[in-house]
C-alpha cells in the first residue's frame, strides 16, 4: 500500500474513532446522530481505501438515510433533545468504561499478537461483480432469506409502531406511570 494510502487509513481511522467517541459526548441528539454518521463515513472511506469502493460508498449511502431516521427518532423520544440544558444520562458508568476499555484492549491485543495469513485480494478484479455472482449463485439462499427477513421486519415494525392495529388502538389499556418513583415502587 502506498504512503498516501497509509496516511488516508490513519486519517480516516482516527476520524472515525474520534467522531464515534463524540457521539456520547454531546447533549444534542441531532449532533449525536450525525457524529455517528460521520464515524460511518470515516469507516466507509477506509473501506474505499481497502479496494472495496462499492461497499464503502454503499455504507455511506445507507447511513445517510438511517442516521437521519435515527436523529428524528432520538429527537422524538428524548427529553431535552437539543441539549439546551446540559445533561448526563448514564448508568453503571464505571462498569461501562471498564467493559469498553477491556474489550478494546482484548481485541487490539488479539489484532497485534495473532498472525494473519497474508493473502491480499487481487488487484484489478471487480469486487462488485463478484459480489453479484455470489448473491445470484451459491449464496442465493442468503439473498432470498434476507428478503423474507426484511419483509418480516417491515410487517413487524408497522404492526408494533402503528397506531391502528387489527386488534384496536395500540395504546388501549395502558397505564401511565406515576411521576413519583416511590409511588411506583409501592
Amino acid at each position, binding site marked *: 500500500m502506498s504512503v498516501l494510502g497509509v496516511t488516508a487509513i490513519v486519517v480516516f481511522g482516527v476520524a472515525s474513532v474520534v467522531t464515534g467517541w463524540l457521539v456520547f459526548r454531546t447533549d444534542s441528539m441531532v449532533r449525536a446522530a450525525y457524529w*455517528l454518521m460521520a464515524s460511518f463515513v470515516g*469507516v466507509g472511506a477506509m473501506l474505499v481505501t481497502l479496494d472495496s469502493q462499492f461497499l464503502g460508498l454503499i455504507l455511506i449511502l445507507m447511513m445517510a438515510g438511517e442516521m437521519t431516521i435515527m436523529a428524528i427518532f432520538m429527537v422524538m423520544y428524548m427529553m431535552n433533545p437539543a441539549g439546551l440544558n446540559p445533561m448526563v444520562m448514564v448508568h453503571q458508568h464505571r462498569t461501562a468504561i471498564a467493559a*469498553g476499555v477491556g*474489550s*478494546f484492549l482484548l481485541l487490539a491485543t*488479539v489484532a497485534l499478537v495473532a498472525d494473519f495469513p497474508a493473502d491480499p485480494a487481487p488487484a484489478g478484479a471487480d469486487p462488485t461483480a463478484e459480489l453479484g455472482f455470489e448473491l445470484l449463485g451459491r449464496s442465493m439462499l442468503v439473498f432470498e432469506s434476507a428478503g423474507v427477513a426484511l419483509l418480516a421486519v417491515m410487517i413487524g415494525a408497522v404492526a408494533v409502531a402503528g397506531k391502528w392495529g387489527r386488534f384496536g388502538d395500540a395504546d388501549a389499556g395502558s397505564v401511565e406511570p406515576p411521576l413519583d418513583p416511590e409511588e411506583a415502587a409501592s
Partner: protein
Amino acid sequence: MIELILVFSAAIFGIGVYGALSQQSFVMIMMGLELMINATVLAIVVFWWGTTGGDPRGQLLVVVVLAVMAIEAAMGFALVTAVYRARKADITEKLKRLRN
C-alpha cells in the same frame, strides 16, 4: 496494515460497548450497538482485503451485517415507539421500576 486497521476497529468497538452499557436512553443504546456493527464491518473488510484472497463471501458477510443493522434499527425504533406509547417511558430505568 491489517493490524493497524484492526486496532481502529477495536477502538470503535470499545466505544460502542461503552455506549451500549452506559446509556440510559433506548435510542442511545442503539447508537452503541450501531457503532459495534460499524467496527465489525471494518474488521470483516480488512480480513477480506488482506487474508482471504478476495473471496466474495467476505463481501457477502458485510452485506448481511448491514442487513442485520437495518433490521435492528427498524425493530428497535418500532419497539421504542410502542413502549413510549404504552408507558410514556423513554429510558430503561423507568421500565425497570414498572416491572412490579
